[in-house]
Every structure is written in C-alpha cells, then in structure tokens.
C-alpha cells in the first residue's frame, strides 16, 4: 500500500520523502527496543518518539516510513537523520491508536 492511499484519512503531513512510499504493514510502539525486536521489514513506524534515534531504529529494521502522532514537534536533527537514511517522515494530529486503526483497516 502507498502512503498516498491513507494520506487523507490520517490527515498526514508528509515532511520528507515521497507519498508514493510503499508500506507492507505498520508497527506501533514508543519503546524503541520493542520496535527493534518486533517490527518487520517494510513496516511504517507509528510513534510519538520524535527524535533522531527513532530514525536510526527505523533504518536498522528497514522501516521505510515514520508516522509521528499527536502533532509532536519534530526537531531538525530528526529531519536531517531521516534525509540521510532515506526515510519518509510524516506527522498527523491523530494519536497512535487512531492511526493504527486506520492503517490496519486499510491494509485488510
């Protein structure tokens, strides 16, 4: 599924990268070690952890996109890191539960 297909439903603001980005699934967690342990390759990462370490984790598990929830402020160092690792960075007003529900339904 492309991010563009759920962009409107999520009110997604794509800060970096292309809406054509393909995601195979998604993983929701604010614990980065949990993401390391359980996220699958191709998952979008749904989280409120808006900092550059989240990008490192996404990169290590081959997650192509990060969706920051609840409109959390995103520091420049995170955008820089996402740019460097070629990871799509988006933000939405919705919380993790709402985002997960919408993506879950869209993927079925």
């Amino acid at each position: 599924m492309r991010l563009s297909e759920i962009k409107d439903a999520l009110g997604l603001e794509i800060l970096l990268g292309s809406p054509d980005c393909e995601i195979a699934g998604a993983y929701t967690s604010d614990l980065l070690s949990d993401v390391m342990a359980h996220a699958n390759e191709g998952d979008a990462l749904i989280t409120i952890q808006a900092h550059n370490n989240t990008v490192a984790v996404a990169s290590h598990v081959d997650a192509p996109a990060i969706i920051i929830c609840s409109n959390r402020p995103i520091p420049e160092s995170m955008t820089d890191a996402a740019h460097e690792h070629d990871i799509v960075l988006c933000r939405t007003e919705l919380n993790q539960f709402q985002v997960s529900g919408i993506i879950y339904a869209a993927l079925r």
Partner: protein
Amino acid sequence: MSTLPISTDDSPTFLTELIFRLKVKDAMTREVITARRTDPLRDLQLLMREHQISGIPIVEGPRLLGIVSMDDVIRALDEGRIDEPAGDHMSRQVIVLEDDMPLSFGISSMDKYRFGRFPVLSKEKQLVGIITSRDILVALLVEFNREAERLEDDIPSRPTDDSYRREYRVRKYDFELAGKPTSDIKKRLKEAGLHPKLIRRVAVASYELEMNQVVHSEGGTIAVRLNPQQVEIIAIDNGPGIPDVEQALEEGYSTATEWVRSLGFGAGMGLPNARRVSDDFEISTGSHGTSVRCRFALPEHQTEEDSHATQ
C-alpha cells in the same frame, strides 16, 4: 579501556582481544598452597622456601580469611615473632579477583595495587586459585604461540582480504551520534553481500549494545569482525559493570533513568534482544566494565547473490 596500564589503541587487535577473551581462570594457578590461621609463621616460611612462592592465603575450609606475604614473614623474623600463629600476622583486607573476570581486569589490578599475587575466588566466594604477573605472562605467551601457529596454518588457504575488522568509539549520553556505528556496520555487511535477514539481526544486536553503552556505561567501543565463517559484534565498555547479569538478561528489567526512558530507551529489552538474535552470546562484567560478544554464523553460500541463484 582507560584503566588498562597498556595502550590498547595502537596495539595489535589480537592482543586487545586476547586480554578480554582470556579469563582470570585461564591463567591462574589452581593448586594453591594454603595455610590455616593457627599454623605458626615458621611453617609458612618453610612453605614459601620449598615452593618458591611469595605469599600464602590463609583459609578455613574453602573460605579465604587473609593472606601472609613474604614481607609479613620477614617482619615477624625481625621482631622475633616467627613462632606466632599466621592468623595474627595476615592481612585481612585482601584484594581478590573473580575467576570469570577477563584477564584485562587482572592486568589492571596488578598495576593498580602493586601486589605480587591475587587470590582468585569463584562466584560462590570460594578460593579456587591464585594469580601472579608471571601466570599472566605465561598464559599470554602460550596463547600467542597458539595463535601464531594457527596463522601459519591458515596463510596458504586464506587470502588476507577476507577478514574485516573495525572498531567504533561510543560515548556516554551521546544520543546524537548513537546509531552511527551500527549504520556503518550495516552498510559494510551489505557491501559484503550478506543476507538482509542476517544483517538485520546483527544490526539489532549492535544497536542495542551501542545504546546500552550510551545509556548505562562510561563509554566504550563497539567492534565488528567479519570473516567467511561468521560476523562478530564485540562491545566493551569502561564500567561501571552490571550488578546482576541474570536480571539484566531478563526482559523488562531496567535501571534506566526517567529521562532515558522518555526517549524510548531503557525498556529492559536491550540485552535480551541482543541475545535473542545472536547465534552465540557471551557476557562478562565487573566494576571495571562489561564486555559482550555476539556471534552470527555465516552459513556457506548464504550471500544474497547465492540465495537468488538457487531460487
């Protein structure tokens, strides 16, 4: 490690690895000459002469009570007290080593305390050996010889460029640079054509160990070693050590501070994650630091190209 009296920065990597790989128990003398506290010092003097040793642990069963050194004996001779019981002349504040500590701890203790010998205790606090600087030298020389022989055997069959090693420094609380070593390691393994699933497992271990050093240690190093048989991630930090390794290996146990947790770390999954993805996982820890080694076997012909070719 900053506490090590030899500079490991420029020394051959083999030496550095060796002093971390070898344990105190690999170098110590296991047959310890001991005495009881009721034994007269005269007996100890004879034991020292007979066995050419300079110190004797005083024990009660397997328990260490103290140590009598050659100096103690000489002083007693001077003072005409050589027939008094050893217990009255022993040092009770004994610096000991644990048998599972890396040899590097032994070397730095020798340097720090300037004692000729250290009694070695097991985890159960029983006296299991004694170690001198001579023991350490002998152990290192034996291991060096072994390695030299191995290298000689290997030279014809192994081109020199199929082994890769790189070390990265990790600094305490440096969240900005955290993840860079792992990114670099991943890139290198991709270039080497390793299977993406394997690379991911290595990355999980490497990143968790890196973050552990950032969050919990005084800083350290992460090293990667790649050869045709395996990938190794070796994390060595400068302390303060893990008080309870068993607990640290249990999921959910964490000693991280509140602000570290607020960044999404410190969930108590780091070591369990690293262990889970590794084919082989070794950890040793003490107040001088913690070293972790994760091994990943490289199945033959499991590179990306090969798996495509067989599909």
